[in-house]
């Protein structure tokens, strides 16, 4: 691309070929090599008569030759530049005069830990604030029932409730079956296979049914809420609602959370039944416990309390999932990355809070002997 020769005590750099983007990588290496080999020549002539084509990349490298030699006190003479490229070369020589701005700083580990701690505190406040706003909006709706967005809620109910039924049934069915199959192997050692019915019944109705369904819904519907609201934030739809005099919480959040509060107990019921059915089939095929024996034992093993304990938890978990998902959605900023980050945060926080709540409920029910 370039050839360097000495002539009359000075240096002649002759360019040839295409000084374009495609060859810029190779040209750059040759330019840097020439600059390294001849740090301080007496005079320099850059002869461009052989350069057939030139674009910004070539012009930038020409500029690099010129500037580097200029800073070491030699002013190169440029000859043979085709007139049609004169404007480009001149334009490029005007650029790059400003010093580059400082790079974006990435945070140190300790700094990140500090910021995360502060953020956790802020998150807790924001959550509390949002719970307040939601309750206030719900209260306003109770006072003015006409303003309730019934259609919107039914639509959400369809999305998060009805359409979730198949996957919830499938997952809980499998978990019930696995639970029974695993339980059988241990109870068989004691000759107490029949107790597998107690295991499945109590565990599913009290704990697992609602927990699995809540976690599934946090992943399935919570993330959908965050993504929907986040996309609306990015398109300024939420701002549009505000300036038209609507409260975004009332219009967007309350119907969604109410839909979840209705859907989650129903899904929990369906899921629990499906898990028990899975357990029944596994007990039948692995342990030879026939369905009529299974059901007879189930009647004896569980009472209504077990069932109620599970069902009481469902609406509270729905509330937490809905609040966290909607809050994260409304905090989405301008970028696609921000949408992804908040969706992840919503699912992680919702699942975390669901499990914490389950623990709190366990302590509460234990203390009231339920």
């Amino acid at each position, binding site marked *: 691309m370039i050839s360097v020769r000495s002539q009359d005590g000075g240096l002649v750099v002759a360019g040839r070929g295409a000084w374009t983007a495609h060859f810029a990588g190779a040209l750059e290496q040759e330019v840097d090599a020439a600059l390294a080999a001849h740090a301080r020549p007496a005079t320099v002539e850059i002869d461009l008569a052989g350069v057939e084509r030139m674009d*910004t990349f070539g012009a930038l490298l020409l500029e*690099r030759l010129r500037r580097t030699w200029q800073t070491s006190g030699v002013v190169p003479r440029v000859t043979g530049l085709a007139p049609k490229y004169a404007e480009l070369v001149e334009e490029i020589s005007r650029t790059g005069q400003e010093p580059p701005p400082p790079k974006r700083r990435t945070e140190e580990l300790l700094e990140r830990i500090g910021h995360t701690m502060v953020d956790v505190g802020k998150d807790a406040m924001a959550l509390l604030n949002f719970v307040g706003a939601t309750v206030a909006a719900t209260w306003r709706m109770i006072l003015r029932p006409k303003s309730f967005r019934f259609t919107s809620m039914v639509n959400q109910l369809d999305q998060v409730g009805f359409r979730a039924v198949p996957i919830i049934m499938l997952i809980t069915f499998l978990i019930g079956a696995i639970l029974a199959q695993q339980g059988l192997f241990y109870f068989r050692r004691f000759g107490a296979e029949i107790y597998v019915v107690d295991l499945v019944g109590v565990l599913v109705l009290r704990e697992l049914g609602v927990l699995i369904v809540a976690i599934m819904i946090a992943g399935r519907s919570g993330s959908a809420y965050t993504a929907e609201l986040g996309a609306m934030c990015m398109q300024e739809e939420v701002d549009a609602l505000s300036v038209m005099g609507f409260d975004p919480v009332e219009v967007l959040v309350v119907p969604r959370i109410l839909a979840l509060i209705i859907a989650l107990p129903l899904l929990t019921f369906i899921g629990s039944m499906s898990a028990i059915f899975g357990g029944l089939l596994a007990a039948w095929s692995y342990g030879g416990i026939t369905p009529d024996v299974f059901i007879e034992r189930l009647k004896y093993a569980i009472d209504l309390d077990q069932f109620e304990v599970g069902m009481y938890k469902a609406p509270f978990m729905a509330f937490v999932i809905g609040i966290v998902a909607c809050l994260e959605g409304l905090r989405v900023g*301008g*970028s*696609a990355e921000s949408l992804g980050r908040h969706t992840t945060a919503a699912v992680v926080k919702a699942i975390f809070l669901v499990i914490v709540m389950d623990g709190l409920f366990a302590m509460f029910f234990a203390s009231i002997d339920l």
Partner: protein
Amino acid sequence: MDARTPARHAEAVIEVRDLVVGFGDRVILNGLNLDVYRGEILGFVGTSGGGKSVLTRTILGLVRKRSGSVKVFGQELGTLNEKERSLMERRWGVLFQQGALFSSLTVKQNIQFPLREYLHMSQAMMDDVAFAKIAMVGLKSDVAEKMPSELSGGMIKRAALARSLALDPEILFLDEPTSGLDPIGAGDFDELIRTLQQTLGLTVFMVTHDLDSLHTVCDRIAALADGKVIAEGTIATMMAAKHPWLQAYFHGSRARAVFGAQG
């Protein structure tokens, strides 16, 4: 005006012949013919929803055509293999209407993205290129480290233009470049396009609604209606055209304000 008009024998870099594009049972472009010559700025106008963007997207290969041919640099896009296509795509730059900057990258990274993909050069060289392009589109160098969400509308357009120029394309597609800019910003942007076109020897295909842009920077105008190009030529040709839509467009109150006595 005449000095800018390319000679008739100029090489056509984009040739569209009998192009038909439709979605479902709706036909958007119906037998469209268009030539874009090397070194010109072509303004493309048309009814809203009439298929201006569809034509641009068809030329770029984002929308499938039903029949007809679209040749860019004399090559039919559909017949190219993957490698040839990638080489072709490096010869054009596209400025989308909303900028379409990658929101998770800084402006500098946005500009360097195609460089990193296609060319093998040092980071120092890529930085030089990025800062040169940023300066060429009239932005300050501190914009380089900003995220797109931290920029104003006009700055986004300029940064996106810098990215579309990253590989020194021969053809530049602009989709409504001045929409959403104030009149001063739009005027500056028009001037910038003219300067860049001259400096870099670009061919510019510009979809626009801005009568000022048509008047000040476009060498030639093509008008789209009913799925066809109904008129091609200078402003004077457009003013003289008999088609009712052109009459309304170039003789409306806004047009009179721009073209003054000519209208």
